[in-house]
């Protein structure tokens, strides 16, 4: 193994022997790409022509007035092609796949955003594509499955385990151990064995690089606090990384689900329910029992519904550099609703977790303070899930009528 990738005891590369050579090759290609100045340029070029980079920061004037505290800015990752920050990582890894000469990509997906982004990248670069998605997620995110199908990807519903994101990751690994010669596994978040945590946060760091410049241009000073939701942790690390050495408080918000006391949540760093373990190739905090068996997690947002968390974030939690909070399903729907009405912005359910905590803290801050929220994705494309979360009666009526039409 070339390098193991530890962050003060978190991370590592707990790999089956069959994959060691593949990871060595990936590490090698990644190091070469990183030290090649033309690579980052190639990356930013494609992100500015194929996606909408740089994505703007929006001053949320109405929300600022509403809370009568800190000035609220929103980093608009929702304006990326395919509607979320996932595109940043996927296009970056896609360029690496070209350098490695592989012809097929596989990926796991929870909410479906990473699956759609990977399928899109595969269509553009001419790769074959297989997406693993937990059966529960296939059911709650049908529109994303529809688009993956259209994009030419094969979507495989995973019926094992808890049938959500972690199980999809396991299945993707099982595919990879048989097909590594032709195939690259486009892991969607800053988790998994080294070099994935480093590599994914490297590509996502484009968010913070832009945001820092943009906020300095607009305000001439740094924000007091930055808020980002945390599933695996890629959008949070993406925006945090550039500010790690600044006097900026960084806040990660996890899925509180039905509440931290309910046992039905996905809060690994903000609850007492998680402990350090090793699974899916890396060491971090996992929601697991005393034997080390992974527990079921819950969130209204499929993209946050995961047992583990980036080892880099586990390290930043232990070092005290990042503060972790959680938001419940109910709070998330309220924050989303307020953002839609006040600003005409539709954050994804995942991203809305960050808004919840920002809204709790904004009124307590002074009008001199600036806060920045990472809107990691757009919510309008998840209309089925969002409509359910809002419990919208007219939507239900529409669906029933639509079903009757299909039955007729």
């Amino acid at each position, binding site marked *: 193994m070339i390098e193991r990738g530890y962050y003060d005891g978190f991370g590592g590369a707990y790999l089956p022997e069959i994959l060691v050579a593949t990871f060595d090759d990936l590490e090698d290609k990644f190091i070469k790409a990183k030290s090649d100045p033309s690579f980052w340029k190639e990356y930013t070029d494609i992100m500015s022509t194929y996606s909408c980079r740089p994505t703007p920061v929006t001053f949320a004037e109405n929300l600022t007035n509403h809370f009568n505290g800190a000035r609220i800015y929103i980093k608009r990752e929702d304006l990326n092609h395919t509607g979320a920050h996932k595109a940043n990582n996927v296009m970056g890894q896609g360029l690496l796949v070209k350098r490695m000469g592989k012809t097929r990509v596989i990926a796991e997906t929870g909410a479906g955003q990473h699956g759609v982004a990977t399928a899109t990248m595969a269509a553009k670069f001419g790769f074959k594509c297989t997406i693993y998605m937990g059966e529960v997620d296939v059911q709650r995110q049908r529109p994303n499955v529809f688009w993956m199908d259209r994009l030419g990807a094969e979507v495989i519903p995973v019926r094992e385990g808890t049938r959500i994101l972690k199980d999809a990751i396991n299945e993707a690994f*099982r595919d990879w151990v048989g097909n590594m010669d032709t195939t690259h596994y486009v892991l969607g978040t800053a988790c998994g064995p080294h070099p994935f945590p480093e590599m994914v946060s490297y590509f996502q760091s484009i968010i913070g690089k832009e945001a820092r410049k943009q906020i300095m241009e607009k305000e001439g000073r740094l924000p007091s606090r930055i808020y980002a939701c945390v599933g695996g942790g890629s959008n949070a690390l993406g925006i945090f990384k550039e500010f790690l050495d600044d006097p900026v408080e960084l806040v990660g918000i996890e899925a509180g689900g039905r509440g931290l006391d309910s046992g039905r949540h996905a809060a690994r760093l903000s609850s007492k329910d998680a402990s350090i373990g090793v699974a899916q190739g890396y060491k971090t905090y996992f929601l697991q029992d005393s*034997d080390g068996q992974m527990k079921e997690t819950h969130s209204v947002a499929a993209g946050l519904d995961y047992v583990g968390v980036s080892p880099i974030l586990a390290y930043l939690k232990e070092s005290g550099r990042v503060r972790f909070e959680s938001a419940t399903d109910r709070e998330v729907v309220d924050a989303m609703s307020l953002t839609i009405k006040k600003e005409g912005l539709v954050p994804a359910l995942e991203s809305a977790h960050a808004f919840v905590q920002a809204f709790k803290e904004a009124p307590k801050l002074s009008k001199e303070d600036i806060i920045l929220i990472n809107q990691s994705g757009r919510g309008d494309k998840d209309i089925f899930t969002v409509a359910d979360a809002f419990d919208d009666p007219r939507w239900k009526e529409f669906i029933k009528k639509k079903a009757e039409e299909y039955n007729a």
Partner: protein
Amino acid sequence: MLESYLKSRLIEKKILLMTHIVLGYPSFEECFKIIKTMVNAGVDLMELQIPFSEPIADGPVILHANQKSLAEGSTVKKCLDFAQNVTQSFDIPFLFMSYYNILFKYGIDRFAVAMAERNMKGAIVPDLPPEEGQDYLNAMKKYNLDPIFIFSPTTPDERMNYLASFGRGFIYCVARKGVTGLDTDFSGQLNKYLERCRRATHLPLALGFGVKDKNDIDFLKGKTDIAVIGTQTIRLVEKKGVGAVGEFVNSLR
């Protein structure tokens, strides 16, 4: 020691048989019956898998067995208790196989103590390369247990030597890419790979992944020291019940 036991057995037999079961699947009682049948049929050593919720190196059959066992309430404690019973009842070497988190959560040293107390001979931990396994290696050495390491067809010669420097007992050679339980092509390719494995270590070689009948085992005679039957017996128990195991094992030689 496992190595000397295997080498003395190899004087009498051309190839040894190692079988694999998932503890608590279909139940601990059935597991005991399966082990009894296998030992009576002449199996030379066995790996007992402690189930884990995320067995990433295992294919659908063993994955399912892991999940079913956990759903039926298997715990690490039950597996250890069972192992105690097994090693007292049968006179062949037993190994634990599990994923690293099971050992890590139990406490590496404490787990090694538990193994030694139960007269288990060693362990196979497929997601623990030696680079990550310093604590494990120390504990295994301290209690005179054998850490079994794995070669794969993608492992370069140099790394085989490196892995062999940590391994004791025998080396587990994975026959091909992919997860457990898929078909393996027993052909010239495999010969070349096994020759590479042989050059890298003086330890006995076990070959697993896809071994399912007498033909496969005949092919392996003279090329490997131990043939590993994993998924195939689990499949058999699922289809025909525990009663079919004895006849199956007898049919292999």
